């Protein structure tokens, strides 16, 4: 392990205001993620686990405290800088896959690659490689509505890993899937972690999913209430 963690949340507060009501989602949270780790965040709904993911991916900002990625403070960047930072460093996987319905599988995977300086042919090769890794080479030119849920999530994973990001952030990746497909997706994530040393932070409330991680962090009311190695 390197001398500092890949991601560090230090004293992070996150407060949402809805009307006159203040919702304290995170209260002085401290959390480190090491490079190459596969971490599962668990806890009841509303405990702030998705918020943590959003902060790590620079799509949300803390009200207080710091989010450091490889020593760099994310909250000091403006929107455009954060956007290009995301393009370089993060791959997102969502519960609802969030594919573009109007684009084919390979076109979906090409989307984040467009933001890299890679030449056109190289991008195409990278996208095809990503689809090959998730086992969907055969369905490259299918549209999302021609794919099953598990296949859609695979395309989403391919899209997330295509740019070779430094961390994968997965928000309930198996939430919408049946047991068999879910297991296959988890196999895939585990393999990415083992073979390529891909850092993964996954939010889940499925204990079976959490079992696959190195470390499980239990959260409640915006605090870490427990953690153990899986």
């Amino acid at each position, binding site marked *: 392990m390197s001398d500092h963690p890949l991601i560090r949340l230090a004293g992070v507060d996150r407060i949402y205001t809805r009307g006159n009501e203040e919702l304290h989602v995170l209260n002085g949270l401290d959390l480190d993620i090491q490079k190459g780790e596969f971490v599962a965040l668990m806890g009841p709904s509303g405990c702030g686990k998705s918020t943590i993911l*959003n902060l790590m*991916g620079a*799509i*949300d900002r803390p009200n207080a405290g710091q989010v450091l990625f490889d020593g760099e403070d994310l909250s000091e960047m403006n*929107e*455009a800088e954060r*956007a*290009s*930072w*995301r*393009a*370089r460093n*993060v791959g*997102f996987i969502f519960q*609802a896959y*969030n594919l*573009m319905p*109007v*684009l084919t599988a390979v*076109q979906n995977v*090409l*989307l*984040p690659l*467009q*933001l890299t300086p890679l030449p056109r042919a190289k991008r195409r090769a990278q996208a095809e490689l990503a689809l090959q890794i998730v086992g969907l080479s055969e369905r490259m030119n299918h549209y999302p509505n021609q794919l099953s849920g598990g296949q859609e999530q695979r395309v989403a994973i391919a*899209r997330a890993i295509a740019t070779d990001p430094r961390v994968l952030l997965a928000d309930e990746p198996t939430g919408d899937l049946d047991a068999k497909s879910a297991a296959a997706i988890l196999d895939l994530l585990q393999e990415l972690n083992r073979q390529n040393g891909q850092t993964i932070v996954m939010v889940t409330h499925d204990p079976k999913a959490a079992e696959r991680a190195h470390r499980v962090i239990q959260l409640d009311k915006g605090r870490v209430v427990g953690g153990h190695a899986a």
Partner: protein
Amino acid sequence: MNIPWRLVLAHTKRRWLRSTLTIVSVFMTILIFGILRSFIVGIETSVAEASSTRLVSASALSLFAHLPKRLEGEIAQLPGVEAVTHWTWFGGVYIDSSPDHLWGRFGVDVPSMRKVYGPDLILDDEVWKRFEENRTSCIIGADLAKDEKLKLGDRVKIVGNLFPGTVDVEIVGIYQSKVRSFDQKTMFMHWDYMNELSKSAGGRQDIVSTFTMLLKDPGQAGGLAKSIDTNYASSSNRTLTQTEKMFQAQFASMWGNLPLFFSILGGIVIVACLMVTANTMMLNARERVQEVGILKTLGFTPGSVSTMALVEGLLLCLVGGALAMAVVRSFDGKMMMFTILTVPWRTIAEGLAIAAGLGLLSGFIPALLTHKLTILDAIRRRA
């Protein structure tokens, strides 16, 4: 800037019905604009291309009044006059008095007409000669030939009213015009012939509508016009002499504020179309909130995502606008309501600019909303 072009195109295709309807709306609007504009430009061009070195003398009383033919000799003798010719509005009825058959027919003197107006027309020497030699012949404009389905050798019969008697002349030539001030929907016959016809039927004789003078020195136009008018100021044949350009301008101004009226309507049409395109873009934006969230998550900057909204509107409107201007361009040179529709590149540029304006304006609010939309809002709204 990184714009997911393929996504823009995919959307336009996906919502093909909406896209098509929007394109056609813009097409119709720019078509209306183009036709109105080419009409107005046509009126302006007929003035702009008219000669300022030829002088036209008409009765100061009104268009309905005539001048005696004998003035021709007097005018020809004025210093500075190279040549004089005369035109006389015959009127009369061809087939019936419906607007379709209401085109100009004039009695002229062929040799002097050729000297004064020859350079404006495309007509072979051979044809000029045949026209000159045959007293019961005529030449007609190319548009007139097309609209009335007339060809060389056909006979044209016109029942006179201002001048009694029925003219019956053979078409010996079809002219084309080199300038927009000379329309291609007129018939010219021998003044001698119609004059004699009228005389023998007991009608008016030896009168003409206008004299046109070709000048030795165009710089003399002002002075010469004045001296002609002063000459006849106290006679019963008071003349009004002006450059051909001003003479044409007088016809153009007869439209009154009708061109303005149509311009205002054209403006309303454009605003109405803006409503349609803006509506399309708003509907698109509303359906794509989630997508914008995803794009931003993937690392597309707010700038490129909102440019996408702008580009899509621009694309639809420019396609519609370009198609419309292509159609409008094909109208160039056609006659509509006594006016040669004129479509210069400037008009085409204006049409495209309006289309682009429609696209940018209608994409503006969606682009702004897209720019401001945070990823969290986008994701939350979906839930």
